[in-house]
Each structure stands twice: as structure tokens, then as C-alpha cells.
């Protein structure tokens, strides 16, 4: 108890030095929490963005689609009977919010003077409106079931064709039997998925219209939206089991399997975060080592005395490490508290970030302060403080007693 008290009194002994050390620890903890919280919010925003604008949580295809579907998509469609059977089955699951079919095709969109290759998605407008909540309408009106020939045109595509709402266009595509057909369509509005690349080539039409164009009753995929993203794996496993038992030739992909861009961005930012962590670690570590070494130098005769009256090297090390532990604990707790307050302040201020590369939408800065992030970085601060004290503590413990006693 007395030894712990001595460590505490030593921390209080040089208030200014301890204050500087505490600032260094807090700086480290606050920077890492704010940065980690910002990245976490970005990851979540991106993840939910891709899920709710394009991917859904789970996509179901005819077996073989992912391997051969690119070359011959018309051969890997889910037929109408299976579609009906599994839709009801999936909708019955309590974790599922909705299931919607999509028919994908590539075609040529022309306004009479200019033609552009497009990626077309035939959708159920009502269900898709619920699933694609992250798809923003930038002009005109949404698509409805009764708009048989209506189309939502990707924002970039809409602009590159200089379209206006209500413009008449012609969409040409290869049918399921390999022939070629065309349909007139009307631009009811322009949409932004949040990804510029997609918006430059993408359009949506009514599923029935797309099926007519392709001469099919089938769909390319069923998109499942769950209530919670965290249930994805569990529902995937459940559906896989059910399809196998029923002998259905279907395959499933999760949003994570399909979101390559998301994973690339996460990996990139995780790498940046690791480098920042190292820089912060170095700054904090050097700051603490410096102040601890000064403390050791100042207290050299005291260290000699402790050793002379029976203190072991381990005892001296424990004393300095305890002091660092106390500083680390206080610094980390204060760091976490200030980081939470700052995070709330910054999030509440609603500061908008510029449009990120590849994206077509701005977004507000949000900083998440999950318990996991807080305790991990709080612990990080504490560990840095303790690790920083090891060198000074060893230095103190290795002092030659008689030289330490003579030191003035």
C-alpha cells in the first residue's frame, strides 16, 4: 500500500511534468478514438450505402451464374416457378425485411442522335424503393409499377445525354433466345447510387418491361434485404441449408462477397490508420520516455537510497512502472472522456465532407464512439504509458548504488 502511495505521490510531486505526460497520453488516445470513430462511421456509411443502393444483404442466383453468367446471362436465370417458391420462403424469415427480384441486361440506349452502352436493371419499383433507400433521386419522379415504359436514368448518363424528364428514348438489347429487340422508354427521373462509375452507365426500368424486352419470365437474381446487417451470415447459412434440402440449384452471395470496392477502401484506410497509430505511438512514447528519464535523473539519490535500504532492482522498476501506470490510467480515462465529448461535438456540428473519390454524394462527418473503440484505445494509452516507462525503469534499476547515492 505504501509503495503504491509512494508512486502516486511521485506522480503528484512534479505537477507540470505529470501534466505534460498526461497531455501526451490524452493526445494519443483522443487522436486514435476520433480517427477510428470517423473511419468506423465511414465504413458503416459505405457498407450500408452499397447494401441499400445496389447489393442488398444477400443475393440469390441460379447455380453457375457467378462462374458463367457473364458470357451467357440468359442461360442462368431463375425461372418464374422457383422465384415464386423461394420468395415466399425467404419472406417468412423473421430477420428478413424484404425480397425483390432483379433482371439485369446490357443494352444500347439512344435518344436518336447519340447511343450509349448501358447496364439495365429491371426492378419491382415498390420493393426496390424500400431496398434502395441510399439511391437518391436527383431529378424527376420515382418509378412506379404503372409506369410500364418508365425509366430511372443514372445521373451521369442523364447528363451526358442532355436528357430532360419525360424524354423519349429507345433501349435495344439481346433477348433470351439470342435475337435483338428494342423498346421505347420514357425518362421519368435521374438517380444517383453514390458511385460515379455506376451512375454513368446505369438505368432502371420496370421488371415486366425488362422481361418483355428479353422474352423471359425469369430473373437474374433475388435480392434480400435484412433488418440487421449482422444477421447476414446466419441467414445465408439458413437459406443454403433450406435450398439444399429442397434440391434447388441456387447459389448465394453475401454483400461482403460482392462489395470489392468497399473492401479495397477499408483495407486502404486500415493501412492508413495503422501508420497513424504508429506515428501517434512514437510521439507519445518519446514524450513519456523523455519525462520519465528526467524523473529518473532527478531522483537518482533517492533510487540509491531505496537500493541501499534493501530495495531490489525489481522494486525500483515496479516503482517507476507503477507511476507510469497511474499516469496512463488517468491519461487514458481523461482521453476517452474528452474524445467522446469531441466526437459528439463534431458529429453534432454537421460538418460536410467533400465528395470522396469515385462517389457522387457528400456526407456529414460522423464520429462513432463504440464501447469497443473506446476501451481498446483507452487500453492502448495505458499500455503505451507502461511500455514507455520500461526503459527509464530499467535504467533506474541498473544504477550503481554508490554512484547513485553520490549523485547531486
Amino acid at each position, binding site marked *: 500500500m*505504501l509503495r503504491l502511495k509512494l508512486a502516486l505521490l511521485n506522480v*503528484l510531486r512534479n505537477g507540470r511534468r505529470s501534466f505534460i505526460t498526461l497531455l501526451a497520453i490524452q493526445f494519443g488516445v483522443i487522436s486514435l478514438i476520433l480517427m477510428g470513430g470517423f473511419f468506423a462511421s465511414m465504413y458503416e456509411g459505405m457498407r450500408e450505402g452499397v447494401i441499400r443502393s445496389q447489393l442488398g444483404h444477400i443475393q440469390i442466383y441460379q447455380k453457375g451464374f457467378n462462374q458463367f453468367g457473364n458470357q451467357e446471362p440468359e442461360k442462368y436465370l431463375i425461372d418464374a416457378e422457383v422465384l415464386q417458391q423461394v420468395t415466399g420462403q425467404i419472406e417468412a424469415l423473421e430477420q428478413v425485411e424484404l425480397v425483390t427480384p432483379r433482371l439485369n441486361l446490357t443494352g444500347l440506349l439512344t435518344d436518336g442522335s447519340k447511343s450509349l452502352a448501358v447496364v439495365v436493371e429491371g426492378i419491382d419499383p415498390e420493393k426496390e424503393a424500400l431496398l434502395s433507400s441510399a439511391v437518391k433521386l436527383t431529378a424527376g419522379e420515382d418509378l412506379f409499377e404503372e409506369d410500364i415504359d418508365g425509366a430511372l436514368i443514372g445521373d451521369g448518363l442523364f447528363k451526358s445525354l442532355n436528357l430532360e424528364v419525360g424524354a423519349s428514348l429507345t433501349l435495344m438489347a439481346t433477348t433470351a433466345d439470342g435475337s435483338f429487340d428494342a423498346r421505347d422508354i420514357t425518362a421519368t427521373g435521374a438517380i444517383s447510387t453514390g458511385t460515379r462509375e455506376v451512375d454513368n452507365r446505369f438505368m432502371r426500368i420496370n421488371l415486366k418491361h425488362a422481361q418483355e424486352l428479353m422474352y423471359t419470365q425469369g430473373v437474374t437474381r433475388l435480392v434480400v434485404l435484412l433488418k440487421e446487417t449482422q444477421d447476414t451470415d446466419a441467414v445465408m447459412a439458413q437459406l443454403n441449408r433450406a435450398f439444399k434440402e429442397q434440391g434447388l440449384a441456387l447459389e448465394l452471395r453475401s454483400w461482403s462477397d460482392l462489395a470489392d470496392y468497399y473492401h479495397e477502401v477499408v483495407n486502404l484506410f486500415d493501412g492508413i490508420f495503422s501508420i497513424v497509430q504508429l506515428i501517434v505511438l512514437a510521439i507519445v512514447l518519446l514524450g513519456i520516455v523523455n519525462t520519465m528519464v528526467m524523473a529518473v535523473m532527478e531522483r537518482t539519490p*533517492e533510487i540509491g*537510497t531505496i537500493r541501499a*535500504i534493501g530495495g531490489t*532492482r525489481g522494486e525500483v522498476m515496479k516503482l517507476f512502472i507503477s507511476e507510469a501506470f497511474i499516469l496512463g490510467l488517468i491519461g487514458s480515462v481523461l482521453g476517452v472522456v474528452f474524445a467522446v465529448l469531441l466526437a459528439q461535438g463534431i458529429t453534432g456540428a454537421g460538418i460536410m465532407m467533400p465528395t470522396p473519390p469515385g462517389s457522387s454524394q457528400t456526407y456529414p462527418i460522423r464520429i462513432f464512439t463504440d464501447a469497443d473503440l473506446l476501451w481498446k484505445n483507452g487500453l492502448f494509452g495505458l499500455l503505451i504509458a507502461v511500455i514507455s516507462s520500461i526503459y527509464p525503469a530499467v535504467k533506474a534499476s541498473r544504477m550503481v*548504488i554508490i554512484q547513485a547515492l553520490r549523485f547531486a
Partner: protein
Amino acid sequence: MAVVELQAISRSFELGNTRVTALDKLDLTLEKGEFVVLRGVSGSGKSTLLNLIGAMDAPDAGEVFIHGQALSSLSDKQKSQLRSRYIGFIFQAFNLIPVLTALENVQYPLSLQKVPDREAKARAAKALAQVGLADFVDRRPNQLSGGQMQRVAIARALVTNPDIILADEPTANLDSETSKQIMDLLGSLNRETGVTFLFATHHDFVLSRASRVLELKDGHIVKDEQAHNLTLVENSPGEKLG
């Protein structure tokens, strides 16, 4: 058994390009209860001798035995434990820990021995009472006079019930009146507790209180005199009276 035994101890130091011999093949035995004064001019090897006996330095040749235990056979940790158990130190500059109170300073060596807090506190308070500081337990070193600080240091040296207390110029930083009081205190503690005292000093008034006087010169003991009066320890078995 002798408390301390030195056999053919030699110790020298590098000083620039030359090697200075501080102690040269020195033999010495200290028995329980002796009150030994170590005299000699500056550089005669007094502090070196105390450091060697205190297991804080190692000889170039020869062997130091504390309680029959050869120090050369001990690890650093074992030497620390030996200092904690058998040896008390009193320093010229008192060397109290400034952030601790008088009581805590005295309690600290017991805390290093892992003595339970309550017992350590009681023993520390008793030691402070022995040196006349019962009313000063809560004072910090900067609230005490030089004499009081040295009394706290004496209590700290005594509290572990050591076999020997080593004091390096314990009165050098004190005025003559306080020095005499401190020496009287050490003398009476020697009589009461039977603990062996070895202190280096250049104050002549100390001689009248010593039971044995050693004089060092050029690394040798040139004089080893037993006193017949004053601070003789009653019932001390190893007393060497001339």
C-alpha cells in the same frame, strides 16, 4: 559469530590514467554490539570500506562475510535482501524520501520486506518514539530540522532490527550541539539494542563515545584501539576490550 568479517580485502579505482588503491589487503572483524568509529583523512578509504561492508560494492580481491555469508556468492537480489535484513544505513545527507512523512519514511524499509501495513506502521511509530520524534510522525522532511531529519534516518535504520548500522559521516551536516545529541542517541541505542555501529567520521568528540576506534591510512588500518569506558555494551558476547 562475528557480525562482519573482512579477509584480505583490496579495492582500487581508476582515476584518470592512474589506479588509486583505496583498500589494500585489509582484514577486519566486527563483533555484535561494538560501537566502532572509523577515522581517517579524506580519501583514506572510509567510505569504500563502508560500501563494501554494506554490500553496495565488491572488492577486487578478498572476501566480505556478513553473518558468515560470503557476499561474493550472492546475487544482486540476495544482496538487497541481506541489506534489508541485516544492515541499516545512516547517510550524511539523511537521504529521506521527500514526498513521504517521517512515519512513512521509517515504514518504507518494512514495506520493502512485505511486512503488513498495520504492523509496519506500529513498528515505525515505535522507532520514531525511540529517537524522540513521537510528535513528528506526520511531518514531511522539509518540515523538519537537520537534526530531526537525521533522527528519522536513524529510526529508519533501526526499524528493521539490523545487526549492524553503517553511518557515513552522520554528523557532517549538523551543528556541533545537534551532532553531540545525535551521537548520544546512537550511543544509547547501541546500549539498548545491542546493534553494532560502524561510522566514519572526522569529529574528534565522537572518539570519547566509541568502544573501538579504527584509523585508516592509505588503504590500511593503522590503528585499532579498544576503549575501556564510556559506551561499552553490557552483555555483548564478542566485546574485545583491551
